[in-house]
């Protein structure tokens, strides 16, 4: 007649299978495993410094296009890049005959020789869309003795020709003329070489400059603009082609319908360098000897020549306004979401659970006061207080500080439910029996009561992870996040700060938000599946 089947150890063992019996449990578990593996992979592959690079490094603008939308959302214009290493080199060849009689004089009377090198590369462009931009880097190294010692001549000594030859045979010149006399050392015609120190390591980046917006006073400015002008006139748009910028016009043509479309086909990128130099410095047995030229500081060589067709999109997720790939940010945010979510919820639930257990065990004035404290903490308006505390900590706010603040406000959440459970458990005979044999309060709380309550509090903890993540995102959006940690909240903050909504940069906030939703939903699903399994029926 007293057959009361209590929840038992056996039932505990089968929790996992029960969890997987519901659809929410299944989906939640699958999502959790996938995200956990991803997070572990990210941490293992990049390390903490690798993750922090996302917010702290400035290398991104050298690596990726800026504010590029995802490639699936736009018609793709393929990127192309031709750089010096891939180019065919003809020469350097020494010759004693040049077309210009003035220059011929140099050879004849000043014991000089003309050395010419041609670099040629090519790329194919097959697309309906214009690229977002094209970019160029051209840097030439000129030896100190690379010119014949002339006092009287007015002729050019170093001649440089850089252009793109389009499939239709037209040439767009970047440079076509002499290098300024007296130049030696490194001549930056366009673009930049950047040295970035990162973790004690020096990394060199070549940064081609945009041809859409050519900067004032660049050495190539005059040649390039006039070349583009000619092209525009040729295409029938002397006032410029609407909607296209200089860098894009390089690839423009007019089709039969009279529309401006990108010209498909093979583009050649050419660089021709010729210079006059003292024969003795470079010739060995009448032949040009590069080693000798180097040795005598009598060389003219390009160190950097890069022509880049910038894609109008990047990857599946696009890039943000700081050229960082969104996809990478989503990955990097994952471990932080895990760490923050887990630490805050589990610590605060643990505190709350233990507090509630103790408050349920002490039925006297002690427990009463404990519950009033909880009442007060629960009455505090959450976000306003968090914002206020963040303002107070503003300069020093880091992820641990943020976590601490949230714990201070979150711990009282589960106390009321836990206490009502503890009240019931403390009425159990075995608790009194433990007291009767002399078990201490600590022992009763930890060994007898807490283990009963623990599984349920874990469900509460899992259910409150979304709240933590959303709170972090909200605080980040308002500018109270950890500036170093690449959380999804920080990505959303960037989107908000640059006005991504009205600027149409939807990928800046869509993906971080989705990542956040998926992450939160994982735990909500799991929690909802867990709750009925671990929650003992509460007496009303």
């Amino acid at each position, binding site marked *: 007649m*007293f057959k*009361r*089947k*209590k*929840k*038992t*150890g*056996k039932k505990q063992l089968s929790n996992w299978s029960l969890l997987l019996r519901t659809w929410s449990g299944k989906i939640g578990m699958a999502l959790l495993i996938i995200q956990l593996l991803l997070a572990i992979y990210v941490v293992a592959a990049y390390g903490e410094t690798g993750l922090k690079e996302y917010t702290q490094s400035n290398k991104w603008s050298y690596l990726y296009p800026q504010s590029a939308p995802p490639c699936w959302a736009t018609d793709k214009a393929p990127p192309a890049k031709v750089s010096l290493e891939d180019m065919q080199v003809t020469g350097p060849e020494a010759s004693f005959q040049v077309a210009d009689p003035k220059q011929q004089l140099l050879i004849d009377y000043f014991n000089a020789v003309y050395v010419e090198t041609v670099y040629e590369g090519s790329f194919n462009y097959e697309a309906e869309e214009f690229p977002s931009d094209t970019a160029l880097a051209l840097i030439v190294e000129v030896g100190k003795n690379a010119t014949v010692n002339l006092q009287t001549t007015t002729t050019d000594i170093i001649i440089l020709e850089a252009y793109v030859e389009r499939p239709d045979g037209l040439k767009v010149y970047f440079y076509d003329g002499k290098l300024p006399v007296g130049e030696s050392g490194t001549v930056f015609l366009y673009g930049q070489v950047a040295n970035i120190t990162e973790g004690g390591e020096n990394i060199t980046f070549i940064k081609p400059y945009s041809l859409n917006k050519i900067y004032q006073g660049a050495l190539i400015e005059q040649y390039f603009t006039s070349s583009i002008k000619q092209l525009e006139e040729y295409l029938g748009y002397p006032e410029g082609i609407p909607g296209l910028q200089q860098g894009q016009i390089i690839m423009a043509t007019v089709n039969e319908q009279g529309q401006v479309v990108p010209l498909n086909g093979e583009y050649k990128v050419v660089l021709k360098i010729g210079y006059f130099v003292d024969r003795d410095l470079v010739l060995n047995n009448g032949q040009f000897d590069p080693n000798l030229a180097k040795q005598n500081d009598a060389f003219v060589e390009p160190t950097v020549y890069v022509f880049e067709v910038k894609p109008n999109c990047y990857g599946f997720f696009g890039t943000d306004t700081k050229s960082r790939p969104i996809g990478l940010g989503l990955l990097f945010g994952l471990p932080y979401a895990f760490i923050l979510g887990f630490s805050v919820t589990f610590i605060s639930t643990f505190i709350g659970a233990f507090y509630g257990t103790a408050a349920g065990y002490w039925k006297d004035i002690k427990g009463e006061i404990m519950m009033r404290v909880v009442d007060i903490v629960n009455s505090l308006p959450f976000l306003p207080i968090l914002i206020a505390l963040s303002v107070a900590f503003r300069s020093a706010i880091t992820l641990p500080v943020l976590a601490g603040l949230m714990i201070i406000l979150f711990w009282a959440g589960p106390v009321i439910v836990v206490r009502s459970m503890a009240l019931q458990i403390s009425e*159990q*005979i*075995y608790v*009194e*029996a*433990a*007291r*009767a*044999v*002399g*078990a*201490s309060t600590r*022992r009763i709380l930890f*060994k*007898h009561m807490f*283990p*009963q309550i623990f599984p349920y509090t874990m469900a509460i903890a899992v259910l409150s992870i979304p709240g933590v993540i959303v709170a972090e995102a909200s605080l980040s959006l308002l500018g109270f996040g950890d500036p170093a940690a690449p959380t999804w909240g920080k990505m959303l903050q960037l989107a908000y700060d640059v006005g991504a909504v009205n600027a149409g940069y939807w990928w800046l906030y869509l993906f971080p938000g989705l990542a956040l939703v998926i992450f939160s939903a994982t735990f909500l699903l799991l929690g909802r599946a867990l709750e009925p399994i671990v929650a003992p029926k509460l007496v009303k």
Partner: protein
Amino acid sequence: MSHAYRVELGEEILRVQDLKVWFPIKRDISDILLRKPQLYVHAVDGVSFNIRKREIFCLVGESGCGKTTTGKALLRLVPVHSGKAFFKPRKETLEILDAMGVKSENGFVELFGLKDSQFRPLRREIQMIYQDPYGSLNPRFRIKDVLEEVLLVHKIGSTKEERLEIIAKALEMVKLTPVEEFIDRYPHQLSGGQRQRVAIARAIIGNPSLIIADEPVSMLDVSIRAEILEVLLNLRTLLDVSFIFITHDLAVARYICDRIAVMYLGKIVELGDAREVIADPLHPYTEALIAAIPDPDPANRLKFRDLKIKGEVPNAVFIPPGCRFHPRCIYYEQHKETDKELEQLCPVVEPPLSEVKPERYVSCYRYPSIREIVKSGLPTVNKKE
């Protein structure tokens, strides 16, 4: 059923004097502000008795009469309002208590005057067996853990192996064998009788000198009750342990007890040798209790039996004045017309518990000796040895 064992009783080990357990009724803020008096539930209202070594002392009464509370009060599981309990622990325990600065008198320690920390060593000496074998074992503890807890709390056995040995011995003593089979099980994997054996093992594992058994067989199947009682009876000779056996079942009480104390509404109304009390009840309430035992003879099943009691148990907050039993007392009802003295005594003055026959104590004005005590204005003499 006849009395199973008779053993030589030893010296006195526990003396309870005028124990009162009153539970205060919670007052809210307005009651305090309005200065309403604090009300109490008089669960135990002045109980005195003594127990000797190896004795099985029964507390009998209907539910709510305070018998369980009396037992719990001795373990200080409920707050004691007033009264004293002198307990004689074993020598080792006494030494520990001495070291803690506890005063003792002829080896007796007053239980209710101790601090919680001072009482802890005594918890090894006084143990409890609960009525509900399903509730008294933590469902998350294996049998091993249940028993080990006592050892850990009282620091018995220094190594795990040593403790396991003690546990095995205790389980053997309650005949839960083979030990290896049970030691790693959870309570839910055992039957009710087996669980109660575990509970008994838990009570004896610390080698106590007094066990409070709170209806240890009432929730068990009738078939296994006898076995459990057997185990308990064996233990008292084996371990030199005394029992306070709380029961509402007079049959069980008659079988196992040496002496019986019948409680009504927080007070002992009759006390004496178990068999004598049951064979020849002196108090009207005891009479009523015995009359209520179901008659096992099927021939009598249709016979009307006159109840020797009327009405219901009054509220323990407002105890009737005078003899607390008088509103329900048939004797009073029948005799108050003829015996005018009763009307002046029963509803007015509480009858003291005093000896009316050798070793038979009762508190009822039926007996002239008790009337004399009250009338002569002598101080209420509590039962004394």
